[in-house]
């Protein structure tokens, strides 16, 4: 009797973990196949009951089961909707150049990247709070320079700008010269693969 309870309890735990880890609602048939001969419906009913008044509920829809945060908490969960947008490659590269070369003018950024920088790129970085205008360079035309903000350090978990890995560190970490040709002669073995 207690044995039966124990094994039921283990099966409920298993269902709970499967439903938690699954990316999509799980068809009841699939859940049945994971618990063997024991009818899955009463186990799911147990689990449903367990979560009935909790912050998360077990819900069935179209023969599929899933955990969902309780509907009444919706208002409290939403603070302010912010869409996470993927940054363009141009934006990420521009940010990295500003980080490493600051204070740096737009012309200099373009010279390093080898392509023109659209105005929007710097706007996006400024809006994200990562870069800001610095002093004007005292050269003809007095171009504006760009620097990173304190929030930039916060976001990337850096103590200071000096903690950015140097070019040598990047090379050693495998982030530079990825396509460097290998020497073709034996006897130059470096001991690494």
């Amino acid at each position, binding site marked *: 009797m207690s044995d039966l309870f124990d094994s039921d309890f283990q099966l409920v735990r298993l269902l709970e973990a499967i439903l938690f880890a699954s990316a999509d609602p799980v068809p009841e048939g699939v859940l049945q196949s994971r618990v063997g001969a024991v009818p899955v419906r009463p186990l799911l009913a147990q689990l449903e009951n367990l979560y009935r008044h909790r912050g998360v509920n077990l819900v069935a829809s179209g023969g599929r089961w899933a955990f969902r945060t309780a509907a009444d908490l919706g208002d409290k969960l939403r603070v302010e909707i912010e869409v996470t947008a993927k*940054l363009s490659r141009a934006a990420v*590269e521009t940010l990295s150049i500003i*980080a490493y070369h600051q204070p740096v003018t737009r012309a200099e950024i373009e010279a390093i990247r080898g392509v023109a920088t659209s105005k929007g790129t710097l706007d996006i970085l400024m809006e*994200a709070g990562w870069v800001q205008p610095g002093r004007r360079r005292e050269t003809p035309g007095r171009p504006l320079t760009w620097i990173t903000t304190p929030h930039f350090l916060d976001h990337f978990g850096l103590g200071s700008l000096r903690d950015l890995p140097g070019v040598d560190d990047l090379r050693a970490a495998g982030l*530079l010269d*990825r396509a460097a040709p290998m020497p073709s002669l*034996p*006897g130059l073995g470096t*001991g690494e693969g």
Partner: protein
Amino acid sequence: MMAEGMATAGDEAVDEALLLDIDGYEGPIDLLLSLARDQKVDLTRISILQLAEQYLAFVAEARRLRLELAADYLVMAAWLAYLKSRLLLPDPQPDEPSAEMLAAALTLQLQRLEAMQAAAARLLAQPRLGRDRFARGAPEDLPIFAKSRHDLGLYDLLKAYGDIGSRQARVTPFTIPVTELYSIEEAVARLEAMLGKLPDWSHLDALLPAGWRGRGVKARSLLASSFVAALELAKAGQLELRQEGAYAPIFLRARRGEG
């Protein structure tokens, strides 16, 4: 004397599996650790002398089989041969670290690596996310952190910067393909890299890459280039050469007493 030590030790049975697995070692210290485990005693009570002999036998056998050994392995062989002679003979120079101190330092080095290898195994046996433990499969897009609009990590940032550098490197000048012969420049670079780590007089032959005894032009270029490289470095004042007589073995060592 050092070269002889390496040659005679070769008779000892070296585990074939060890040799075949030469690429499997993460460097000479790792190889030494594997050999030390064969002694089946606690690392603090290991016989460094016996270990040195095993290592030298391994290197001798690898060279006999013409296995390519990285320069690191040869430097370690030269150093162990030196340590072995120091352990067997009374300490001549009082101002140098004693043989026992060197042996103790090597033991500590082995212990440290062993500790980290064991730690790595235990770390991997931890209940890992994505294998033993799982995160929420269907995270709901709640703005819980509500801080940043873009999901950009430090790695992405550094990688972007690295990519710019790599892109520029790719348009750098055309390079002449490397010839099949062993160039003097390569030999100089190789010797220079080993030089600072050599303990004392080392046999030139022992420092050459495996396969130089062959007959081919390539093998001969190896010996010739390395010899010329040794002369170049001697001329530049970086090393000293010694030869007892015509056709006698050539020894070299880093030049002592800077300035």
